């Protein structure tokens, strides 16, 4: 029976895969989202399922002897407990992984906006992409004029200094409509724009803020 149990697990260290998963996201550079480690996440879930099967088997063995679980020998109770704790540890590892990635995905909405750059999107799982879309919509709803606070909350991450900013156009962007009328954002031209108009474009990388020196 012992030999069979070993073979069915196929690994020796409880929690090592979970630790690897947490390390994956913990060691990644702060502002980035590494590719979703689907293989490892699945392995952690599968391992949890293995532990659970062991629990059920152990419970079954006890019940076959006619004893109730309360009357189980300490050794058997301890085995069940260890497997149960192993499942909980794997669950925690998974949630740490998902939670930290989710935090970074949320940050995207505030830093980049509602358009998810392709290079980032390809690193997200299907569920994470879906979460981003829903989260972006949730923020939009809260910010909106109708049914919301009516204020763009992604502006002014820092206290403002000037109400107009000088910017240089980095990418050909075409014509935009501002409070002062239409402005043609030709590459390498310099403009004096209202902060509210310029800030989203600066965040997107279309404009570059020029220091007033």
């Amino acid at each position, binding site marked *: 029976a012992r030999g069979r149990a070993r073979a069915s697990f196929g690994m020796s260290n409880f929690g090592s895969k979970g630790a690897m998963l947490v390390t994956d996201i913990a060691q990644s550079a702060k502002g980035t989202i590494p590719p979703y480690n689907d293989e490892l*996440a699945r392995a952690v879930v599968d391992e949890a*399922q293995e532990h659970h099967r062991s629990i059920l088997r152990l419970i079954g063995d006890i019940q076959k002897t006619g004893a109730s679980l309360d009357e189980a020998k300490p050794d058997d109770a301890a085995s069940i407990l260890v497997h149960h704790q192993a499942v*909980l540890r794997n*669950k925690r590892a998974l949630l740490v992984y998902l939670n930290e990635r989710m935090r970074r995905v949320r940050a995207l909405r505030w830093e980049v906006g509602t358009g998810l750059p392709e290079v980032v999107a390809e690193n997200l799982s*299907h569920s994470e992409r879906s*979460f981003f879309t*829903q*989260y972006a919509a*949730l923020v939009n709803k809260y910010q909106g004029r109708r049914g919301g606070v009516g*204020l763009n909350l992604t502006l002014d991450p820092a206290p403002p200094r000037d109400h107009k900013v000088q910017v240089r156009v980095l990418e050909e962007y075409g014509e935009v409509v501002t409070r002062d009328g239409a402005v043609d954002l030709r590459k390498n031209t310099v403009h004096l724009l209202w902060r509210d108009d310029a800030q989203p474009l600066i965040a997107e990388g279309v404009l570059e803020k020029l220091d007033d020196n």
Partner: protein
Amino acid sequence: RVSRDTPRASPMDEEEDLASQLGPRTSQVPDTDVSRLKRAYVNEKCAPEILPFEHDLMRRVTESVDAQESTVAASRAAAGSGASSATDDLTAHVYHAELNRIRFLMRAYYRARLRKIETHAVHCLKEPDVLERLSDLEQRYASDYANIVEEHFSSVLGQMPEGYESMVQQIIEEDGAFDMVPEPDADAHVFCRVREDRGDVMLDPDDPENTMDLERDDILMIRYRLIKKLLEDEAVDLM
């Protein structure tokens, strides 16, 4: 604790005695809506838990900002092309600068609260005394947010063994506690400034003998839990 030490026996004492006869000193900064907004924002930023939403203040500030914007826009339109003087330009500039500063405070206030709601969404929803501190829009936000998180997590947790799929309980048990719901840490330390003389105050119910003499402008570094009531009473501000 950092505070001023008052030396005894000097001509100053006469003045102080006189001043104390006039009653406890309170904060002397004029209490305009903008200064209240700034205090609300800083308090919110520093407090570990979400504070009661400033319904009236935000309504008044929003109305003022809208009104001021209309006024400035109207005067710009009236000035027309090339007819504005240097004074008009400067006035417009000042109005815009002020509007931007106020809008920053409003945005920052809303943002600080959303961050806390996101971190403790389930906690906010299940504790009625926390939920009532949220505005109606925030309550809806908390609920919608908790739902999208649950949906996302369930894509993985749904594959877990039976009983382990919940994101609020480690293992689903009848009458089991929701042991996976993060809560704000009321024992986190905060810096605060005393706004009005309060005399001898008992701060820690576990240590009732140890009272503190709180005078205006005293600065304390203390567990949030112990000054929470003082903050609610506007006797202290966080910093």
